[in-house]
């Protein structure tokens, strides 16, 4: 029996504590979301009709099942507000991911072409803002974009505009905020795949008569697709449910689904509808989430 096998058993026991923690605080809570999404709103504290009484025995459980209602989900379909929110979230996430790719790819490419020693420094420089508070970085943009903020001042001084423009509470501001916050998430996976590429491949392409442009599209880009996929998922999934950025930077005439959930929960105190919104959002994200999990798994396995 190899030493490696002997090591494996106690190592598996290490899983017990984190496993129980994640089941209790990650998996079980989703059960509660589902349960409350299926219950009815009530003016009470907490504001819903309690459903299961686990200690009430079989009859109480059967009675509880009779009470299950899909009213909240019917509401989501019948009211335009929710459908529009979901659509807006998906659109914003798609557009943001596309912009992030357009900006992130050249930066990652530039990093991957740096001498080895500088690559580590450049990588550190990209990671550092990710460590700085996300809220602070959004706030920094409010400083710049507000009516008498830096951007308008500079544009006025340069005589590019004659009157201050409105930047805050617009979609432009929101996209700036999203791209700014998620850029490291896009750059890092791209850089990881680009830096791994063997330069000999490009030499071979050049020897075979390809122009740099052709070599890029026929060699570099196809090989970097796993990084493109990972970066896109890493940005797309959280942006769909984003709350803080649209709330602080975008206008209030069109809400993203995270804002709608927040509104239902904190302002309308309608917990069942907020839970139903969360369930549908989760269902929408399950496919990309599974895809992301697969990618993670394959990457770690390949190591």
């Amino acid at each position, binding site marked *: 029996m190899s030493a490696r096998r002997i090591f494996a058993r106690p190592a598996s026991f290490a899983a017990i504590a984190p496993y129980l923690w994640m089941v209790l605080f990650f998996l079980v809570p989703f059960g509660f979301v589902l349960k409350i999404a299926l219950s009815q709103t009530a003016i009470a504290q907490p504001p819903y009709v309690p459903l299961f009484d686990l200690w009430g025995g079989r009859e109480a459980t059967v009675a509880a099942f009779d009470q299950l209602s899909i009213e909240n989900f019917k509401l989501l379909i019948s009211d335009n507000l929710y459908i529009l929110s979901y659509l807006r979230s998906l659109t914003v996430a798609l557009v943001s991911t596309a912009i992030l790719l357009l900006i992130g790819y050249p930066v990652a490419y530039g990093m991957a072409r740096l001498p080895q020693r500088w690559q580590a420094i450049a990588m550190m420089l990209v990671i550092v803002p990710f460590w700085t508070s996300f809220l602070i970085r959004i706030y*920094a943009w409010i400083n710049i974009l507000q009516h008498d903020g830096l951007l308008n001042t500079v544009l006025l001084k340069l005589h590019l505009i004659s009157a201050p423009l409105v930047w805050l509470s617009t979609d432009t501001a929101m996209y700036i905020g999203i791209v700014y916050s998620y850029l490291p998430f896009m750059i890092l996976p791209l850089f990881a795949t680009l830096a791994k590429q063997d330069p000999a491949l490009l030499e071979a392409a050049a020897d075979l008569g390809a122009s740099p442009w052709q070599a890029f599209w026929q060699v570099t880009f196809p090989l970097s697709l796993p990084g493109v996929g990972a970066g896109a998922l890493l940005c797309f999934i959280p942006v769909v449910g984003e709350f803080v950025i649209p709330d602080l930077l975008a206008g209030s005439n069109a809400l993203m689904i995270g804002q709608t959930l927040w509104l239902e929960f904190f302002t309308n105190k309608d917990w069942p509808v907020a839970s139903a919104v969360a369930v549908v959002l989760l269902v929408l994200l399950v496919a990309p989430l599974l895809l992301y999990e697969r990618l993670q798994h394959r990457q770690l396995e390949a190591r």
Partner: protein
Amino acid sequence: MASRRINRLTPFNVTALALGLAFLYLPIVILVIYSFNASRLVTVWGGWSLRWYYEFFNDRAMMDAAWMSLRVAAVSATIATILGTLAAVALTRGERFKGRMLFSGMLYAPLVMPEVISGLSLLLLFVALDAGRGFWTVTIAHTTLTMCFVTVVVQSRLGAIDRSLEEAAMDLGCDPVRAFLSVTLPLIIPSIAAGWMLAFTLSLDDVVIASFTTGPGSATLPIRIYSEVRLGVKPEINAICTMVIALIAVVITVASFASKLSRAQGENAVPL
């Protein structure tokens, strides 16, 4: 050498890189400069001043919130580091146990899960358990989120370690636990430290999950900043943000020393 020719810095590469980095850093630099502005107006430069820092230290509610945030961040980062390290060990060294797929799924999903969903689901759990909301509920919520980041950081380091070292220790008569404690653990300490610091900064940053899971009277610093920011720009917020950035800068410096230490041991893992 041909590869040097390909690694050459073309004007395009340099421009892309410089613009990208400027985009990432300029807003923060501007924020820091304005925190020292004596004037209340953003456009008017009224000279250097520490006025807004004095104002923060005299703001009782803000100070309370900052203290709450620091405690939550320290406690949750510590629990998350222990649990995350255990999870990383189980995933890289453990045998294929039942439910392993579920385990790794649960550890990766929170990395990208929208915060509104994590926050809402944890709140519903706490309400069902009838737990009083405040310090501990926020701490548990942050632990759940950040332990996943710790797992990823420690796991990448564990995956890079030469396993024959552990085997050698066991051939020399160590039992597995001792082999781990005396051989593996010292090698992964830098990444554990980096994981703790990442967990700490993530906790210090979170608004959404904390808003859901905290109770009345125990707002964290980001919650207070957030509610102030919604009302408009206040120079005092610039000062608070600058101090948070300074704190995080210290943390990063320590972390990069830790990773340099680990690189000195023949490893090129970076924090995250």
